[in-house]
């Protein structure tokens, strides 16, 4: 990466020299907020991939009349905060990097522009399709994944029953907890709880996009949901207090050997632990979420992230061009693989490409890669939980407020019974519909 160091040095020299000038300019009030007709304002939380993004942008600027100005935000709600500010000032961004669920929210609010040109014939998934128009260009998927200690668990426990007895054995005999149950208003807690419910075939919602119904406490679903919460409640006996734990906290428990298994996202745990505990990495194996006996793995939470073009910005056409250029760029795979094993390409074709096969980190963790390949067809987002995978606004809002994570907290910390928890969560979901 010699080139990138050089350019950074040059950049620093230039900016350093310009700093004094800048101060003077600033004092004269020449700052100014950008945003002319030919400037595309791009909002992204992928600071990880800044180098690649900058390259794609400069290629794009060479070929078109537009300039792209990026504002990086940190992950979590800060994209939302930045968006609201820009919206209120009448200076909305032209392109936003976000999840498919957020894209659907923007579409509902009338803020998203169709990107049919990019989607049609590209083989890309089309998760936010409303009345035949596509509003989201996926660039990557990030599937949930569990990791367990293969030196403590004899083999992958796979089923609810085995997980429970094995976690109990480890908690009692090995000097660390067998499992982690995250709860509270965190993404980690919320995704895990949703996935546990899916594992027991609970249909949380039903109906088409314009008529979503909450069904978690109806018919057979109720019993299955109660069973799920019961199982989670029992697992929490063999787990440290994980209230308020985000991804990093659970990984910390695995790294510091306070727990022998966690549910997380992709290869995030090994990527993190690699640095601090290289000796531990060979003792970690990936796994699907625990599954009740007799059920099959047919729904697997995979975040889908990509581009939304904002409607009503100054450069909507340029933004559409940019989004298309981005997805077709030669450096697209470098963008996805800047966090390998955590981010995966959005298509099966991309998954089987040489870029993925040749990636060093992925080669070291073939078992995780196999899980992704074998379950590719089960990957879905929380957004696609209406009938036949139709986008579901209630689920998107519930995720935004981490209602399922809160439900686990109600049970594990607040001592609600599994039955009470199911009716609590059903009430909360219905309240979102009002």
């Amino acid at each position, binding site marked *: 990466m010699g080139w990138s160091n050089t350019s950074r040095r040059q950049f620093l020299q230039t900016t350093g020299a310009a700093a004094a000038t800048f101060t003077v300019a600033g004092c004269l009030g020449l700052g100014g907020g950008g945003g002319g007709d030919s400037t595309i304002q791009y909002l992204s939380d992928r600071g990880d991939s800044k180098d690649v993004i900058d390259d794609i942008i400069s290629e794009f600027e060479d070929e078109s009349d537009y300039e792209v100005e990026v504002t990086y935000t940190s992950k979590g*709600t800060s994209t*939302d*905060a930045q968006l*609201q500010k820009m*919206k*209120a000032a009448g200076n909305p961004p032209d392109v936003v990097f976000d999840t498919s669920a957020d894209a659907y*929210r923007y579409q509902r*609010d*009338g*803020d998203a522009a169709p990107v049919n040109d990019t989607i049609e014939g590209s083989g890309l998934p089309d998760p936010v399709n409303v009345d035949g128009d596509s509003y989201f260009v996926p660039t990557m998927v990030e599937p949930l994944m569990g990791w367990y200690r293969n030196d403590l668990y004899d083999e992958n426990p796979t089923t609810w029953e085995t997980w429970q007895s094995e976690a109990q054995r480890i908690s009692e005999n090995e000097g660390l*907890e067998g499992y982690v149950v995250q*709860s*509270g*208003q*965190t993404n980690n807690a919320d995704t895990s709880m949703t996935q546990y419910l899916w594992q027991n075939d609970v249909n949380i919602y039903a109906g088409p996009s314009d008529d979503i119904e909450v069904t978690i406490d109806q018919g057979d679903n109720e019993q299955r949901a109660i069973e799920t919460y019961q199982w989670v409640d029992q697992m929490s006996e063999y787990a*440290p*207090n*994980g*209230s*308020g*734990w985000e991804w990093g*906290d659970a990984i*910390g*428990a695995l*790294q*510091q050997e*306070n727990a022998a298994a966690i549910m997380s996202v992709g290869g995030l745990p090994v990527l993190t632990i690699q640095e601090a505990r290289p000796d531990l990495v060979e003792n970690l194996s990936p796994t699907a979420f625990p599954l009740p006996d007799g059920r099959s793995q047919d729904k697997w939470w995979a975040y889908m992230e990509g581009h939304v073009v904002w409607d009503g910005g100054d450069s909507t056409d340029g933004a559409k061009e940019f989004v298309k250029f981005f997805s077709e760029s030669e450096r697209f795979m470098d963008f996805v693989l800047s966090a390998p094993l955590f981010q995966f390409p959005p298509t099966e074709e991309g998954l089987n490409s040489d870029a993925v096969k040749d990636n060093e980190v992925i080669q070291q963790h073939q078992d995780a890669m196999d899980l992704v390949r074998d379950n590719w067809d089960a990957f879905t987002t929380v957004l696609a939980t209406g009938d036949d995978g139709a986008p579901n606004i209630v689920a998107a809002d519930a995720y*935004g*407020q*981490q209602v399922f994570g809160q439900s686990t*907290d*109600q049970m594990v*910390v*607040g001592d609600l019974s599994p039955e009470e928890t199911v009716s609590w969560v059903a009430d909360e979901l219905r309240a979102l519909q009002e």
Partner: protein
Amino acid sequence: MSAVTSVRHRVADMDERRFLLLATFVPVAGFFAVVWLAPILYALGMSLFDNPTGAASFVGVANYADILTSVGFPKYLWNSVVYAVSSTVLSLLVGLGLALVVNQQVRGGNALRTLMIFPYLLPTLVVIFMWKFILDPNLGVLNQYLVQWGVLESPIAFFSTLQWAMPAVVVASVWKFGSFAFFILLARLQAIDPNLYERARVEGASTWQSFRDITLPHLRGAILIILLVRGIWMFNKFDIIFLSTRGGPLEATTTLPIRVYQLAFSEVNFGGATALAGIMFFLLALVAVVYFRAFEPEKEVAN
């Protein structure tokens, strides 16, 4: 001194005074209008609308009514009061104690002063990282040693347990903000004429008596203002709580500012968020008015 020169003197004096006043207050007023007054009015305006940053529609005080009648409001208010009062009072006591100690010119006092101001100058982000490495059940060294020495059987997740979360947040807050009271009180202590103490000592006053009759009256104004301002800031404190507990577990540390954040950015209800901020503002203003009436914190009782 003739009447003429005296008048001329007064005129020159007046001009200098007017110049000083203008030089000071005009820029201050300008900043103040741009950075505080206008945004606050703007926010209060938004609190009267539904979806104020998008397709806004005027709803009057409906947002206020919704917030005041919502189920969690009394609990969040109570949490805020508990947090604000305990962290303010503890910070003041810690700061006062230390200022008195350092003012004694003990050996190593210099090093102590450096140490004491330091936490206050650190960004909250850094403070939280530090405390995570003390209190966290996985990374925290406190838990690590307590378990190693056999005091605990398994680590305590201080930020995740109902009874520990609030105290843990308060401790981290006092660590950072104790020094605020410290350096302000220290400056005031140094403004006290040492001859006063000498005279008191000669007259046979006990340490406690001279503290009560000399030190405290001199510190009165500073203490009152620290209580007021620190109290306001702690009541509105968001980052230190959010970064350590996110308001959990089970809303045990959900204070009103945390709720404002949830309303604004996870529930995307900006009208509600600004209305809650408005309610907090009016509550604090009410307390402040009473406080100003009762104590007149700007009055000095020096000498």
